[in-house]
């Protein structure tokens, strides 16, 4: 019997990861509350100045998503570490590129879902008006989340071998995703506050380029990272 191709294998693994996520909903709930608490803490730290909150809302949204992504990435590899399931997949044998794609897509989906949950809360408590509508914001949310998850999966797999993995992952990931974070924050702020100088395209371009580079690198590097 022929083994399934890359896309079919990715789909099988993604379904498995989503099923595991659904089975352990407590984890997803904890992630949502953590991200919501982060948003609220920023508003408490800055006080009741809604102008200031609205101006920096995009930044706070992405910081909440970045912090949540570290938890989500760590958790997605903890599942594979338990009973050495990742070894089980490797030895089946499963295409390691499909493992990368499924993990990266799964984490991106989770972050997009988290972003969609945070958006109405942010709009309400920061007093934000959507100047350019919801569609561009959803596009940026998707691009930003995929930009966090692709390098995140590679570094999470690297950190997984270390003893201090919870500390190592943010140490490795945060400096790397600065360009993506900057582009996502700027693009989100422009969508929220209007774009009179037509700068949105260049930030979206940077986000797209970051995605292309790191999804490509992930496909090449991840198989080496998970081998002995």
């Amino acid at each position, binding site marked *: *019997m*022929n*083994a*399934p191709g890359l896309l079919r*294998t990715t789909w*099988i*693994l993604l379904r*498995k990861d989503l*099923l*595991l996520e659904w*089975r*352990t909903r407590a984890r997803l709930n904890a992630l949502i509350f953590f991200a919501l608490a982060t948003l609220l803490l920023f508003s408490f730290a800055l006080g009741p100045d809604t102008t200031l909150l609205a101006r920096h809302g995009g930044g706070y949204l992405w910081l909440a998503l970045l912090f949540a992504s570290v938890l989500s990435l760590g958790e997605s590899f903890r*599942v594979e570490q*338990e*009973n*050495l*399931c990742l*070894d*089980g*997949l*490797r*030895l*089946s*044998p*499963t295409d390691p590129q499909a493992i990368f794609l499924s993990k990266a897509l799964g984490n991106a989906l989770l972050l997009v879902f988290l972003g969609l949950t945070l958006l109405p809360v942010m709009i309400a408590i920061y007093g934000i008006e959507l100047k350019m509508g919801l569609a561009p914001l959803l596009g940026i949310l998707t691009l930003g989340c995929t930009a966090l998850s692709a390098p995140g999966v590679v570094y999470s797999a690297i950190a997984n071998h270390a003893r201090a993995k919870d500390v190592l992952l943010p140490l490795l990931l945060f400096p790397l995703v600065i360009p993506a974070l900057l582009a996502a924050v700027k693009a989100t702020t422009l969508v929220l506050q209007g774009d009179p100088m037509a700068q949105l395209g260049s930030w979206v371009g940077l986000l797209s380029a970051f995605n292309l580079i790191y999804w490509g690198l992930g496909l090449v590097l991840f198989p080496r990272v998970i081998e*002995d």
Partner: protein
Amino acid sequence: MSPPNALVLDDVSRRFGRRWALARVSYTLPTGKALLLTGHNGSGKSTLLRMIATAVRPTAGRITVLGHDTREATEQVRREVALLSHDSFLYEDLTAHQNLVVLGRLLGRPDPAGDSRALLERMGLSARGSHPVRHFSAGMRKRLAIARLLAQKPRLALLDEPFGELDPAGILHMEQVIEELRAEGVGIILATHLVEQGERLCDVRLHLVEGRQVTP
């Protein structure tokens, strides 16, 4: 043309940090023979099985499994070899059935759900197929791990302490499964502390002491 040897170990060593887990082991297992691997805890049995399964690479030396070099034809070796390890490779929050179905889909089986039901039946786990693995006892996990190995339909089965955590009935069942595998022509490498049982099931023996092979 005669079939390739089931296993050829050519001066194989493996180091973890400063410690040599396995040192200069050479051995040839002809096709059709079952190998019993014995030795105390930490003697290198599990490391050797994990190297044959390509989970870890040898630091030095060469391993050939069913005619395939483990470094050069890793994927081919993985297609033909299955490992029953101390770690079960099972997802705790999936049910027993779901664990086997996911594996069946990854292997491209035409009816993964049917295969899973048949394997659960064979291992006496039909009634627990819809239960998450997290709620299984150690013995049930071991039986499910064996079902997972059988799902791979290997040509060479690597069994690391297959009797561990099983009750007497489970041990008898496991012996029966090994005998059935042998009858189907599947090669067996069995690592166990239960030497008497192992000798009954296997033809030849390799004894390891602190990573070195010795004559038992």
